[in-house]
């Protein structure tokens, strides 16, 4: 009765369900970190380095301290000097720089004052004497002998290196009918969330530190705060506020403002709030890695991929962040969504004196898919193959095991391609559109959470209240993607209650289960499975009580619409609330459940790259139609049609929001987003100059469609897989391919700016003697 694994008729799931917190947010009543105000609260500001690389000779804070209204000033020496970071081998952050600053914008000192204006004024009164050091900005330059060295322990400025080799690429290239090499280059792109990083720190008289902050992964922050402050994790509490957009980055890990809020709170005995300005958000680290990608592919005459060899150089910036995993993932994902029987991957992430890079929606899969699906289109053209057919011929199928050990359960890639072709009217458009109008195809894939070497398991705890509603806690944060809704739906499905009968609590390290956090599209699958288990445990407890009271077998009972029903005789039914109360009041029972998923012994060998990185994998395909203005080079996206295999969408309304949101982010990445840096200085640190897609940049609704190919993923809770990142992975190549179709200009460098397109058109006209 309780095993609903094979059930596909849902009572709650599968129906478009409005986000539970949407009424609060739409009314302006959701409290974000910057909305918090506490009695006696002070305001903090950070002093940032004006140099990309310098030694700190001395810091004089006396004038700042003397300013009326200033309560405390701290520098790096006020911290214990313990470095922190994401991975044990890459701990290279300090809460504030001590001896050396490595990028322009790095945090050097912090002030707490009675208001923001005073704090800002005080910052300007801090005098830092720097000895300016030679700096390096380009990864190739940084790797050369004699280049300025950023970190003593990383000779040659190699922040991380990864390589993997499966099969025999040399032999495969020798056998190939067709081999080509191309070089691609991508740009730094920012998360672009609208809520700037913000936090409030408090250090109470018992020595316990509390941080309220908009964190996606509060437990990662919790650990890092303990490292950098050198105190016991148990003495720190991290409380998640509403998160006003994340997309990874600074909301994923502890930032200097978080450490400073706590230490300044300790020094002053008052709560201290920090809020970044948007200029600070855009100047500091956390962005998508700019990459140089050399890609060599060998195929048969009929377009079957025999081998791929990738060399990747990532400009990591001044610190590691999650960068070691970033380049590992780029290599691993060469194995999807196409069969690549022989592959070799060599990647370096290089330290430079720029803001540092890490994860951003789609992580490094986005750059790799741009390169590969652009090249695949060129291969198809050379071999005179249909661009869709070459993709079908190489498509991963259900049940495949990739050379690097991915065990692919469900993967409806063929069907995604078919649907996109139908929705976009591909066959009537490809090569048939008027001049300067074109259509392009692009594909990609993603994983539903990664099994990392450290803590990978998600857990859930649930307890039933006497009114038949439940409290549900997990360590997974809602960052807008709809976690609080889909987790509530899963619990409601199992217990036969309504979505609003499940109270989903925000993460609070003092109360919710330990969890790696929200990243890598892991939550629906990992945490969803844990929630399902927890709900099933409560259902078992309730069924036991109900069975005894009703005189029926527990396994015959079903939970539907707030009732417990004997499936063999549906007239026998009792209200859920009655059983809950009976059990609690008459038998002293506690109805509570716990669940866990992802503790698997299965781990990845990060040295060889072998292992089943995720429980589930999902393909995506899309077609984009563009119009190019031949006078200005301006690209208008006039149509976008995508299809994904996200398994069984548990909340179709949220899935739609995720896939469209991911696709649109990639439009910005393809066409205009670019953090421009000259000698380490960000030249466009405002939304005026850092351009993100606007409503007017979208195709009209009639030409912007998405389709879910529904599969039943055995590893997913109720058949579900990821939806938030995969859909963005194929879009950039599709746009590049569409621009080529429209103009004949092939651009391997992002973004596809009007200038580059115009120069390309001009070059073609000259070649053709038209100009």
């Amino acid at each position, binding site marked *: 009765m309780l095993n609903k694994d094979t059930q596909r008729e849902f009572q709650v799931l599968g129906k478009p369900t*409005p986000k539970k917190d949407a009424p609060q947010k739409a009314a*302006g009543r959701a409290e974000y970190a910057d909305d918090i105000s506490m009695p006696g609260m002070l305001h903090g500001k950070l002093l940032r380095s004006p140099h990309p690389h310098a030694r700190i000779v001395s810091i004089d804070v006396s004038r700042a301290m003397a300013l009326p209204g200033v309560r405390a000033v701290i520098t790096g020496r006020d911290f214990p000097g313990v470095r922190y970071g994401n991975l044990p081998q890459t701990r290279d952050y300090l809460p504030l720089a001590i001896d050396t600053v490595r990028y322009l914008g790095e945090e050097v000192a912090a002030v707490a004052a009675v208001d923001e204006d005073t704090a800002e004024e005080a910052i300007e009164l801090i005098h830092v004497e720097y000895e300016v050091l030679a700096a390096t900005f380009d990864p190739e330059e940084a790797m050369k002998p004699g280049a300025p060295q950023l970190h003593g322990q990383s000779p040659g400025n190699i922040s991380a290196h990864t390589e993997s080799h499966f099969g025999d690429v040399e032999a495969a290239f020798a056998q190939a009918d067709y081999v080509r090499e191309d070089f691609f280059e991508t740009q730094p792109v920012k998360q672009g969330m*609208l*809520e700037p990083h913000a936090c409030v720190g408090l250090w109470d008289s018992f020595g316990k530190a509390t941080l309220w902050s908009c964190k996606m992964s509060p437990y990662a922050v919790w650990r890092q705060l303990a490292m950098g402050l050198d105190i016991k994790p148990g003495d720190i509490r991290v409380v998640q506020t509403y998160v006003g957009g994340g997309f990874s980055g600074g909301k994923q890990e502890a930032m200097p403002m978080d450490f400073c809020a706590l230490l300044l709170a300790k020094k002053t005995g008052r709560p201290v709030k920090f809020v970044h300005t948007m200029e600070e958000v855009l100047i500091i680290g956390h962005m998508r890695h700019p990459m140089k990608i050399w890609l060599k592919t060998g195929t048969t005459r009929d377009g079957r991929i025999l081998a791929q060899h990738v060399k990747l150089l990532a400009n990591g910036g001044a610190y590691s962040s999650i960068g070691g995993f970033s380049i590992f993932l780029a290599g691993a994902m060469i194995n999807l969504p196409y069969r690549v029987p022989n592959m070799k991957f060599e990647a370096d992430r290089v330290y430079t004196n720029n803001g540092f890079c890490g994860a951003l929606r789609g992580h490094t899969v986005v750059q790799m898919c741009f390169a590969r699906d652009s090249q695949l289109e060129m291969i198809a053209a050379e071999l005179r193959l249909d661009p869709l057919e070459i993709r079908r011929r190489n498509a991963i199928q259900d049940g495949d095991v990739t050379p690097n050990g991915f065990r692919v359960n469900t993967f409806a890639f063929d069907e995604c391609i078919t649907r996109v072709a139908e929705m976009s009217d591909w066959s009537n458009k490809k090569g048939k559109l008027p001049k300067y109008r074109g259509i392009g195809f692009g594909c990609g894939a993603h994983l539903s959470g990664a099994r990392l070497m450290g803590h990978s398991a998600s857990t859930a705890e649930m307890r039933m209240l006497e009114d038949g509603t439940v409290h549900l806690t997990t360590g997974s944060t809602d960052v807008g993607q709809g976690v609080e809704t889909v987790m509530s739906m899963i619990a409601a499905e199992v217990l036969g209650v309504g979505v609003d009968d499940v109270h989903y609590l925000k993460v609070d390290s003092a109360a919710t289960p330990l969890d790696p956090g929200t990243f890598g599209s892991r939550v629906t699958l990992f945490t969803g499975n844990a929630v399902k288990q927890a709900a099933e445990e409560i259902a078992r407890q309730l069924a036991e009580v109900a069975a005894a009271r009703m005189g029926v077998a527990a396994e015959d009972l079903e939970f539907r619409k707030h009732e417990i029903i004997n499936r063999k005789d549906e007239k026998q039914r009792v209200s859920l609330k009655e059983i809950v109360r009976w059990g609690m009041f008459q038998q002293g029972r506690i109805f509570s459940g716990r669940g866990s998923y992802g503790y698997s012994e299965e781990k990845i060998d990060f040295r060889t790259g072998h292992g089943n990185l995720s429980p589930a994998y999902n393909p995506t395909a899309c077609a984009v139609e563009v119009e190019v203005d031949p006078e200005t080079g301006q690209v208008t996206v006039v149509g976008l049609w995508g299809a994904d295999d996200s398994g069984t969408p548990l909340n179709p309304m949220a899935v739609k*929001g995720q896939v*469209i949101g991911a696709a649109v982010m990639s439009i910005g990445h393809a066409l205009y987003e670019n953090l421009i840096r000259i000698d380490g200085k960000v030249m466009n640190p405002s939304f005026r100059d850092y351009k993100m897609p606007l*409503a007017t940049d979208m195709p*009209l609704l009639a030409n912007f469609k998405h389709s879910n190919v529904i599969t039943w993923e055995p590893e997913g809770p109720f058949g579900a897989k990821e939806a938030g990142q995969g859909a963005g992975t194929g879009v950039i190549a599709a746009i590049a391919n569409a621009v080529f179709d429209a103009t004949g200009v092939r651009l391997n460098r992002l973004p596809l700016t009007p200038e580059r397109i115009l120069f390309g058109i001009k070059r073609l006209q000259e070649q053709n003697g038209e100009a």
Partner: protein
Amino acid sequence: MSTLVAVTLQINGVRHDIEIQPWRTLLEVLRETLGMTGTKRSCGEGQCGTCTVLIDGQAVNSCMYLAIEAQGKAIATIEGPPEGDAALQQIQRSFVAKGAVQCGFCTPGMVVATQALLSHNPDPCEDEIREALVGHLCRCTGYVQIVEAIQDAASQLANKGGE
């Protein structure tokens, strides 16, 4: 140091007599002086639209508007009047029902902008809706569900008007 001036603001139909520094923006006064944090602070330079409020029915970026300039004008914020506002509530319901809210940080500004749009143009076409949102960034939704929500709100309000 600071020179305080007495200011009277009419916000959501309620009179507020306050003393502020004359250089304070309306956004600062709403959030910090009056504790009305529904209006969000993001870019601080009129690019993102999260701080949008209505002044005499026109949508403005409150981060770019001095509070003293708003004296004698009707200021409306996402919090709405105490007695409720039917159009505002319908727009909020449509945003919820159509999945137009994800992280929610742009939502108050989007909702207020929709109020301004529909009060001037009760039956906007898709292009007019997109144009009305051009000063508003949303990084989550890709705008599709926001446009659909505004279409829904327009049609719901039109139906009610016709009853």
